[in-house]
């Protein structure tokens, strides 16, 4: 299988699978873009090397699904895993109409992080507070033109009443934010005081920094979004080991395997019978009845991301 390069996943997931079934799991930890380039070249040469994919939304929807590299999971998962009541919200969290991509994690993304030595967290209660002229040139954000979840913020603003394209322009152009590409480095720089405020940072980086006692704090503004991060599951349309592919996909969707994945990835399961890891902050757990922007919706992944990217490029140029 291929999946994110996160070292805890790379080490713990194959170990847990092997302990359960006694079968060795070859795990390729790589970025979605690198894996897509590799798969495309392999498939052109008639080589099919991977059975199961776990990855991010963009690669999964706009490359694997768009090129028909994945098969419907309804023919792979067991009836127990297709039982609606087994999942949070009472529906099996398929992302696409073909039911070939399953969301196996879901959490609230990190919204705004501040350096507590420089910013009083109470100062920021809505995203619009970031438009204060005193923050001009002092906000760092993961470049929304680069792959990953930073573009989801733009989509969320476009969709939210009272925000829209004008807010996007005022925040991403008029406020002259510093565009960064590395979440870990951005988190460290925020803690060192290089920037007082940062947007789009990775959940794992922020959690670790907070655990280490660095002077940063997550601020919860008015708009929040949920995502699966790298927690999307799909099975190859031409798996080299069909039975092994089925077994692995079923395991990742069942309580034990799903828990192993989410514990290793540090995320929250979409299954109703898998409790969130105890060390995760409460705000990351999606609350019933609360309104979140759904960054996993098929429409947003296939159209909204493209629109948001075009908007941001028209404002700050191509990278």
């Amino acid at each position: 299988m291929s999946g994110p390069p996160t070292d805890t996943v790379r080490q713990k997931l194959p170990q847990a699978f092997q302990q359960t079934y006694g079968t060795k799991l070859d795990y390729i930890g790589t970025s979605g873009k690198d894996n897509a380039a590799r798969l495309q070249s392999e498939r052109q040469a008639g080589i099919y090397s991977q059975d199961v994919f776990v990855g991010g939304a963009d690669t999964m929807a706009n490359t694997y699904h768009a090129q028909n590299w994945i098969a419907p999971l309804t023919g792979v998962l067991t009836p127990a895993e297709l039982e609606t009541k087994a999942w949070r919200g009472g529906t099996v969290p398929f992302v696409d109409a073909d039911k070939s991509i399953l969301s196996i994690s879901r959490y609230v993304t990190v919204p705004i992080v501040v350096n507590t030595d420089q910013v009083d967290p109470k100062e920021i209660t809505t995203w619009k507070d970031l438009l204060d002229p005193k923050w001009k040139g002092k906000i760092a954000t993961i470049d929304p033109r680069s792959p990953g979840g930073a573009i989801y913020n733009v989509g969320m603003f476009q969709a939210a009443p009272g925000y829209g394209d004008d807010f996007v322009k005022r925040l991403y152009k008029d406020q002259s934010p510093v565009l960064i590409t590395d979440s870990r480095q951005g988190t460290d720089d925020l803690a060192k005081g290089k920037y007082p405020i940062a947007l789009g940072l990775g959940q794992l980086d922020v959690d670790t920094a907070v655990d280490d006692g660095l002077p940063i704090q997550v601020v919860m503004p008015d708009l929040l979004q949920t995502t699966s991060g790298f927690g999307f599951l799909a099975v190859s349309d031409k798996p080299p080991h069909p039975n092994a592919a089925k077994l692995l996909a079923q395991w990742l969707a069942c309580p034990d395997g799903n828990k192993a994945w989410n514990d290793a990835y540090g995320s929250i399961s979409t299954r109703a019978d898998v409790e969130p890891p105890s060390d995760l902050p409460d705000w990351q757990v999606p609350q019933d009845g609360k309104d979140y922007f759904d960054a996993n919706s098929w429409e947003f992944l296939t159209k909204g991301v493209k629109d948001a990217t075009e908007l941001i490029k028209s404002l700050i140029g191509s990278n």
Partner: protein
Amino acid sequence: MSGVLPPVAPDAVEPLPGPVRRLVKARRSSGSRVTGTVVLLLVAAVTVVPITLLLLNSLNVADPGDPAAYGLDNWRQAFANGAMWESAWNTLRLGVPRVLLGMVIATVISWLIARTDIPGGKVIEVFLWFSFFIPSLSMTLGWILLLDPANGVVNQVIRTVPGLGDITQGPLNIYSYWGIIWTHLTATTVPIMVILLVPAFRRMSRSMEEAAQISGASRLRTLVSITVPMMRPAIIAATLLSFVYSLKTFEIELLLGTPIGLNVYSTQIYNWLQSSPPQFGTATALGSVFIPILIMLAIMQRFAVRSRSYVTVGAHTYNDEPIRLGRIRRWVIAGVLWLYAVITVVLPLGAIVLGSFMRRFGFFQLTNPFTTEHWSALFHDNLFASSVRNTLVIGLIATLVGVLVYFVISFVIVRSELPTRGGVDVMAWLPAAVPGMLLGLGLLWVYLGTPLRTVLYGNLFGLIIALVISHMATGTQQLKAAILQVSPDLDRAARICGATPVRAYTYVLFPLLGPSVAAAGVLTFHSAVSDVSTVVLLSSNDSRPLSILLLEYSTSGVLEQASVLGVLISALTVGVALLSRALGGRRLRASKPGRRIRVTRGTPPSPLPAMKAGASSEDSSLTRTGS
């Protein structure tokens, strides 16, 4: 072999009638053409084919998954993009000054180490090797730990100096134009040039410098008028290779340039490859821009060194005593060099080692900031043992195969009379013209498009071939400059005495080239064990080397374990470098005075002590190389 080897002792051949001479010449020329074409095709197969595939695909404008459609859209898009021009300008304004600065610093340091009697020169040389073998990513992290404007150790120490006022940032800032140049100079530019230049300086006969000094020239004038011009091929090759290295490395600009919005050629290509969907066509178009520039540089280099002889190891007696700088001056100059080594190598190296023991890299203010858990975590990583094994196999085989291939190519370029040798020379440069990620992509297509794909793709064999190709320009230029310095008269003399070609090279040429071959081997090993971009698309779970493990740690934000691994990789490379240096030196010193060369064709037996490196100048009629 008539095309590869120069004719042996043409004067000894009895003159032939004119028509026969013309016939022999025509047949020899025909043989040369065939051999030349075969050599050219072999080199082209491994260098031109992947790059041609890349160029072809840069013209493919179809969406992913759709049938191929060709056009110039990707090229238009690349050239119409303001970011491309900005990154090209940044590349030049960062690259040219640092390479020129590096050339001056490295030439002076190399000369001092190799040609003078400064105390501790060899230790300083090893220090500089060490700084080159530390992965650029780790070295940059080390400099961030020292020169971060907020809490860099050096800045914190400087800020305690009274009179600086109550400043909380700086005064030094690694995230700046000069910060990037400084990091490049210390991590790549100066060390690689010293590694390349020291063996060349050591191989140089002192006879010409002595002649200049006997004629009344000062030491400085001798250095400027004799030593440096004689070293021109080596200096040009080292400068070009340093420039190429500075184009290809991108970790430094990625870490230090991105926060200040400074993109260069390699980071721009990286951005395009990482965008969604990946813009392979546009990235390849930008990558291709440097192919004609590099070919032009390669041709200019040929012109620059072809009009004169650069033989510095010839059949003349010479005194190999180091130049004496004077009792006080040698210690003063050594002090300056030691200070340079401490500042540019010991400090960042210390920071890297320190960082590997920090709970969180760069944060001294934490409660209990130090820990050994990152070392423990690395050794307990279930991929660590297999990655070490793969790295050793890849490194050792790529070094052996690479040095052999580079030597043959260099020998053909310098010593043969093949009509295609100029083409071979230019083609050997080609792999350096494209960033590793694109070269890896081209090789992936080549591997998958051949019937040998099951042998080449996803296993160690394919990685080794890719790494040998990727490092070809460096290895070939390094050995080319070395062979240029050795007079062909030396091995021809052995041939005249009846030695077979293999024996003549084994006992004459190879010992003279020992240090350069050792240095080429070390650089190849370093490249093989630390290259990430070329192998990232070609490795599999079973063939993952340590460099890919380092990439995985870095991209998943585990900088501390990446730092530990960086220390281990550099220790491994330095260990191999020291071993190689010892073996290379031993090869030079391993002459057995009583040994005789086997005689053929009735030639009277003759002892060969004089041909062996290590013979004293008193009993030798041939020049000895320094060691």
